[in-house]
């Protein structure tokens, strides 16, 4: 386990190095998109963090807060992932859990646990573009969109960013017509992303507000999504983010939804 990690890390740093110094011009748009996805959503074997969401109205006034324990685990030798979101605040949705098994080839499996009614609901359907808990993020923004769903073009390269235009291959089920990503040439993290609506007008802007290197991984710790057509926005801040803490598989099971992830709620206190 540790060994693989080291290899991955070394490989990654090597690739970073190569990318920045030697192979800048030679990277294809698809390669950049893959690297971005990897840096953005896949680092480590697992990752745990506490996310604070500030949901703001068009006057930039915070109207709702959410505090969520977000856990992600990569399925070994696969591009599958498992996501677990446990709501800590506000008090009236405390213990609510949203769980996703992300599948590259078929619809994701999604569950919602509503504690006060003690209901576990499987969410059917392929729609990944509905709001995440009333925020400006759709849930695909949280779990990440597989790069192979889009066709990518490298539009521009300057000394700091790759500007990539991505157009969905299947247009049904998506509310945007394409999006542009400004990819940091050093970290391959997306720095800014603009979604265009079906009329070709700018619709939503994703921005990275803060990054930090955590356990050698360049990591986004604060980001925002602004609806450019209404002015409403959501700011998310990650705190106590840790990679490779050894999250067990049973956390991501239907049976576990009803249980409080006590151990993981206090991971930051260790």
């Amino acid at each position: 386990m540790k060994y693989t990690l080291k290899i991955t890390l070394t490989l990654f740093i090597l690739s970073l190095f190569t990318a920045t110094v030697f192979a800048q011009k030679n990277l294809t748009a698809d390669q950049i998109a893959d690297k971005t996805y990897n840096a953005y959503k896949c680092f480590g074997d697992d990752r745990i963090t506490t996310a604070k969401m500030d949901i703001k109205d068009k006057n930039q006034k915070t109207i709702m807060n959410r505090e969520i324990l977000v856990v992600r685990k990569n399925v070994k030798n696969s591009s599958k992932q498992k996501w677990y979101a446990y709501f800590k605040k506000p008090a009236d949705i405390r213990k609510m859990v949203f769980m996703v098994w992300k599948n590259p080839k078929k619809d994701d499996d999604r569950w919602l646990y509503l504690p006060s009614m003690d209901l576990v609901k499987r969410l059917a359907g392929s729609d990944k573009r509905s709001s995440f808990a009333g925020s400006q993020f759709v849930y695909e923004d949280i779990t990440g969109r597989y790069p192979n769903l889009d066709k990518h073009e490298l539009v521009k390269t300057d000394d700091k960013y790759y500007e990539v235009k991505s157009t969905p291959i299947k247009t049904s089920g998506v509310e945007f017509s394409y999006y542009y990503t400004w990819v940091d040439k050093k970290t391959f993290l997306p720095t800014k992303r603009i979604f265009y609506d079906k009329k070709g007008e700018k619709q939503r802007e994703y921005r990275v507000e803060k990054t930090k290197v955590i356990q050698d991984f360049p990591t986004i710790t604060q980001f925002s999504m602004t609806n450019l057509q209404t002015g409403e926005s959501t700011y998310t801040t990650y705190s106590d983010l840790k990679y490779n803490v050894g999250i067990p598989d049973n956390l991501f099971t239907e049976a576990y939804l009803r249980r409080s992830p006590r151990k993981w709620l206090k991971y930051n206190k260790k």
Partner: protein
Amino acid sequence: MKIIHFAIERPKAIVGIMLLVTLILLAFIPQIKIDTDPENMLSESEPVRATHNMLKEKYEMSDILVLGIINEKHPEGVFNKSSLTKIHELSEFIYTLQEIEEETETTPPAEENSLDKEKIKKYKGVIKRDVMAPSNVDHIEPVAPGTLKFDWLMATPPADEKEALLVKEKLLSNEMFKNTLVSEDGKAICLYIPITSKDLTYEISTKLQDKVSEYEGDEQYHITGLPVAEDTFGIEMFIQMALTAPAAMVCIFVLMLLFFRKLKLIYSPMIVAMISVICTMGLLIATGNTVHIMSSMIPIFVMPIAVLDSIHILSEFFDKYPEIKDRKKTIVKVMEELFRPMLFTSLTSAAGFASLAITPIPPVQVFGVFVAFGILVAWLLTITFIPAYIMMMSEDSLKDFGMKEKAGSEKNLLMRFLQKIRILTGTKPRAILAGSALLFGLAMYGISLIQINDNPVKWFSPTHPIRVADKALNKHFGGTYMAYLSLTPNQTTQPDVKEISNGLNQKLEKYLNQTDSTAAIKVALTQVIADAQKNESEEKFFSALTDNLYDKADESETDGEMAIWEELTSIVELEVLSRNQLFKQPELLEYTLQLEDYLLKEGTVGKINSLAKLVKKLNKELHEGDEKYHTIPDNVSSVAQCIISYQNSHHPEQLRHLVDADFNGLNLWIQLKSGDNKDMEKTIASVANFFEKNPPPKEIKHEWFGLTYINVVWQKKMVEGMLDAFLGSFLVVFLMMTFLFRSPKWALLCMLPLSLTIALIYGVIGFIGKDYDMPVAVLSSLALGLAIDFSIHFLVRAREAMNESGSWKEASFSMFGEPSRAISRNVIVIAVGFLPLLLSSLTPYKTVGMLLASILLLSGLITVILLPALIQIFERFLISKKE
């Protein structure tokens, strides 16, 4: 009189000055600013308006246009592939009806990211996100045991008839949509199209009309909603103005030609009328006033009054010229006789309108003041321009002018009629008096039947597309008139901290008893609560309590102990949250459901949408669609969890229209079956009644907003204001008459015909059940101003004639000559002249036309019948008093 002599001596100078002033004011007319917003019937600072705007902002509401699609022919109504495909396409078209108005920068937060921040766009037109259409709403459905599906209700048009029926099933399964988006019979769908500003309604509805006119098929398309009615009215009003005002002019012109038979001569009153209108409107625009629905009627009101005096002059001139045979001498004689009555009739008419300045409604004030101004302009022109004009005509051109039929006068229909009246008033004065009294009594009863009501949709004639749409859609749906009722907390008393903490303590102890807690924890908890209780305000109590509980959790020695403290903290936090977020509380949601049921039974309301309805629906679908759960869950957390399930949908922001962001304001969407103000008033009363009989579980206050409500408010203000204005001007006119006649008795006499006229007009309105609406209210001032004219002319000259001849019997012969003819001519010219208004497609214009004709006919008749009879009876009393 000096000015008249000047006009007679230097006619060209008068014409020159007149033209100059007119041209200057005419130059302002292109700067016209039209304002068709009925909200402006209330002044900007009006509290009701401030509340309306504040609540609109709070719930992010917009004005809504309604597009209804009905298919009566297909057995499944609109739920067939073809109709739904059109509806889908129409919705897509509707989304495009917006454009970027401006882009604003957002303040850049402190950040590391140096890439440009995008600007926020502000759109005008359709608010795409809030459009209510099958393709823009979510459908929630349990698809298998334990499995829930959230999806667009109709993302794509149905592929076949079976899918079309599925759309129907989905729509009807949602109480929020039934009777709002879809009719219960499945024949129709309504698309609700919110727009950024009311004044875009006409433009957008025209585009929609153009779009639907491309479609073939069995569907009917209807566009309605108050903003449509109001904006369309504003636009059509100006078209009507441009059609009816000239038509009225032509009618008056033709009639005058019939009476006076001198084309050249009758141009002059036309010129007076036109210039009066130009000057009035020019000044109105020059002074920066917008042309509102009311002020657009100024020309229609100024014209008859402007023509009135000129007709008196021409009528006299026509009668006297054949005797005197010198235009200068004739005009001097005529002007000497008419100067005083004309001055007073103009002053009284102007006073009648100027009195509108005391109403609390800005557009009515502007209207009153400028009509008054127009009347005075008309007066000035009449006494200067008419003599000047006559002087500028050659003596030759007048030579065959006048009473050619003097010898055979008995044959003249009008004169024979007047003679009959003279004989009648001479022989049966008491019967006339009794008859008038009886009529007055009846009129009073009629007035008591008057219904105060207005409805902008009824400003259109029944065949107008807006009226047709209104009827068709309200037949299928719960009503297309939206009124909004906002509920907010209204805490008047400070809650008692002891009471709160006792309630809370029970919940905490209940939890402790269910878990393996130790006695030590119980003791510690009691201490923590006691410490917190030292705070007097609710806020401080809770913050002290949570702080202490967190400390306890941190100090815990074991994981188990810590878990208990954390759980206790969250119970307290939930308590704080539910106390602060009033409308997550089940008992308040239940209460609004009771209110809804009550209102539906009262009859004026067809449908109500609310947060309670949404929560019920979600609760049911979360429980496998089980009807048993079509209720409000019994605790705050469950309500909150139903709501967050909804927030996981495509349009979580739409929740804002039902409840404000902090759940401290609830907005009920009330669909009224009619836009009649009286129905809205009834609904307001029902709600007030409900609150009185059923005190809410928490102190809350309710406030109305929305256009339907605004209309009621200004109507009420207008009716009260009009009454004040009318009574005020009645008094002013009476005082002026007393001054004119230097005798209160004569003044009183003068007021009688107009009082009877107005009583009869409004009595008839009461009897026939015509609503007392804005045009009817405003006409009371016109009635006063016009009706008094005839009495003044009649009485001033009757008194002079009586002074000359010594008795009424002698005087009556001359009184039923020239003066009565002038009055009759006036009546006929103006009454008939305004009949073209009846052809208008807008009801207020018809009303004005009808009422103008009636007022003139009645007041003319009453003047020549009632006044002679009264003079006959009270002759001695009147004369002796005078001397």
